[in-house]
């Protein structure tokens, strides 16, 4: 079996030290494949003066040129023909541009092993059927949006009795149906079966806040869960304090903090990070996270904020071996957490951008272009 396959079958998903050799070999295997099969990737490595053979030591992984997600949104790059890609997924593309990532069978199998290992460890797999409320949109034939696929995937961890979606698709666009969601919550709270929420933190927070304003509070059945994903990023400014979020969930839904699980991931880096009981994202054996200096792009020591660079050899069809996100984060020593997982954990503290910067030279005029396109949630 390939190094990559073996990496994703490791029993202990947090044995980082034990997986170093295997991880390096898997990265070299993937890098060699991309270099051979993706002309653009090869040009990038050549241009940066790097060759897959230079991956000799574990620490060489940090020297591997990374591709910004921003770059993937502008340039489609693949290492396999279309027919070998079982799935195509696109990022949410809030700004209009989105990346389109192809996944081949081998990579998806790795992903499945990973999801099962993590889901088992987090006790997300359950034979008890439950009702799902998805704070996102239903999968739709005309869309490859990964958010919808991931959310749907989550509804497979336990048999589904029902699925209610917060965003409804009609006439070519999505519009929120908040009342429908609140009605479903109230209805399912009387059920014998657990309720699982899945979706963006911001939407979930918004619904709970609305319920509180309307004086609606329920006690959800035992084993109910809130599964948050998709990040807080678009709503970074209004980012609800997490403690307030947990307190609100307790008041309005009767769900305690340990039943709220947050996941981090991206189309360009399909690794499932679930937060531990102290709400930290520990790095699993499947990936490595390098925080880089915002000026020099050199790796920074733990505790220093920087750009979040994610490395995983999972996928071969698209050169997403090492990607640079738009996120700013800090890495911490695993021991600082105290949850029992010893691998280091990272914290997302914000996003790159000139959002608050009032620039006149660059033209701060997006506001008005939004006026022309209208304010609905576009597909």
């Amino acid at each position, binding site marked *: 079996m390939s190094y990559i396959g073996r990496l994703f079958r490791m029993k202990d998903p947090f044995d980082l030290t034990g997986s170093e050799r295997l991880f390096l070999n898997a990265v070299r295997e993937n890098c060699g494949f991309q270099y051979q099969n993706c002309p*653009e990737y090869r*040009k*990038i490595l*050549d*241009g*940066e003066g790097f060759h897959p053979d230079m991956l000799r030591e574990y620490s060489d992984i940090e020297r591997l*040129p990374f*591709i*910004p997600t*921003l*770059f993937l949104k*502008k*340039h489609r790059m693949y290492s396999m023909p279309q027919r070998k890609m079982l799935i195509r997924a696109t990022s949410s593309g809030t700004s209009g541009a989105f990346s389109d990532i192809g996944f081949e069978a081998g990579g998806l199998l790795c992903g499945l092993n990973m999801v099962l290992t993590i889901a088992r460890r987090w006790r997300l797999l359950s034979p008890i059927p439950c009702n799902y409320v998805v704070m996102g949109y239903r999968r739709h034939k005309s869309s490859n949006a990964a958010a919808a696929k991931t959310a749907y995937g989550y509804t497979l961890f336990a048999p589904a009795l029902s699925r209610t979606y917060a965003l409804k698709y009609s006439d070519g666009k999505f519009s929120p149906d908040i009342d429908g969601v609140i009605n479903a919550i109230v209805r399912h709270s009387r059920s014998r079966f657990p309720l699982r929420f899945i979706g963006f933190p911001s939407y979930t927070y918004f619904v709970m806040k609305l319920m509180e304003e309307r004086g609606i509070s329920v006690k959800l059945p035992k084993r109910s869960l809130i599964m948050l994903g998709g990040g807080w990023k678009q709503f970074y400014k209004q980012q609800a304090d997490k403690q307030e979020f947990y307190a609100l969930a307790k008041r309005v839904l009767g769900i305690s903090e340990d039943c709220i699980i947050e996941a981090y991931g991206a189309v360009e880096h399909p690794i499932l990070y679930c937060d531990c009981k102290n709400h930290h994202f520990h790095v699993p054996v499947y990936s490595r996270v390098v925080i880089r200096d*915002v*000026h*020099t*792009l050199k790796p920074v020591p733990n505790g220093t*904020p*920087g*750009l979040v660079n994610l490395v995983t050899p999972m996928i071969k069809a698209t050169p997403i071996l090492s990607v*640079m996100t*738009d996120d*700013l984060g800090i890495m911490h020593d695993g021991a600082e957490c105290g949850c029992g997982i010893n691998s280091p954990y990272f914290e997302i503290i*914000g*996003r*790159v*951008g*000139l*959002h*608050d*910067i*009032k*620039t*006149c*030279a*660059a*033209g*701060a*005029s*997006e*506001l*008005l*272009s*939004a*006026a*022309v396109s*209208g*304010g609905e949630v576009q597909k």
Partner: protein
Amino acid sequence: MILAGGKIYETSEQPRLLDSLAGEISRTRQTLSLDPEKVINAADKLGKRAAAGEFSGMISEFLPDFPQEYLRLAGEYLNGESLRFRLKQELGEYPAACRTIAPPYGLESAEVRLLPLGTLFHIAAGNMDGLPAFSVLEGLLTGNVNTLKLPQADNGITVEILRRLIEIEPEISPFVYVFDTPSTDVPAMKRMAEVSDGIVVWGGDEAVRAVRALAPPGAKLIEWGHKLGFAYISGYEDKPAELSALAKHIIDTRQLLCSSCQTIFIDAEDMEEIRAFCREFLPYLEAAAHEAPVNDIGAAAEITLRKYSARLEEHIGAEKSGREEFRGERCSLTACPDSRLELSYMYGSCLVKPLPREQIVTALRECAGNLQTVGLLCRRESRGELTDILAAAGVNRIMRAGNMSVSFCGEAHDGEYPLRRYVRVVNVEK
């Protein structure tokens, strides 16, 4: 928050207030006029109170990062003496300018009056704190009724400034309407545009296009667009001093202003000279960056990523641009073989390009609409000639290296006197 007739209303009252807007404005214009002297006195008082620190609490609440320098500039701007100087400079005797003329043919005598345009609708981008209020103040100085749509990024300071102004001079109140309408509410913006004679828009090409789409055919569009600044170097009077000043300007303005230097043109043809300049200037830039480091890591990261992506693009591109980056600590210079004026990556990352003086007009022609400020570094004996060439190319402000973003009282804005655009000439037969 909405400000109308001197009173503050909740955002939810917008539909009702919009319904009565046309009627109220007509009533104001039929029965009232605004004396510029009253506006000047109110602005002067407001400026003095601000300078005395009366609003420090308010400013730290709304604008935690507000540079104290701005407060001094605002004080100078609002000063009665400078406002009177501006009015005179831009409009001559106003509003008393009711001149009688005796034209050579036709009527024997006619009267010429300079009057307010009528109602101005200001659409301000959030590119500078307090700018929307200053835009309205210019409208008031010329006696116009002003409707303002706040930029999304406004933090409440605009309404507060205007409310205080009205508090000092209540006669201003029927001349000011401020709405916090989001830009997505096109119908509401259309209604504001419909009651206007002039639409003042601050912003880039996209903003201007959007406003043109919603403006009624008869309205006069007054556009204050985005501009690009550059430096032109053809020798020096005092090289170290001038290069230090230019570096300090680039770093201190973060290259965010219309007048900020984005590209440095060198009076040369040979790329080796361009590279030599980069090597020589980089330490100056580093020293300035060391003095005033960028603390916003989100912005710094964004710029770093953009530069890195551009490098990758260069790798996969079929054509090589021939650009060469000279990386310094927290700053960079890019030697480019072309002579096009271009926006840099900002935050201490300047482009350096060859532009022999014989080709200045040709090279700048294609961005004539975006020209504004040049920082001119040259030998004393060439200054006159180069000034004339740059002016002929369409540049409106020709400054010294370090003063590219320095403004003075009564100066033109993008080649025009703003107040002149807010008035019209009325002829009356005697």
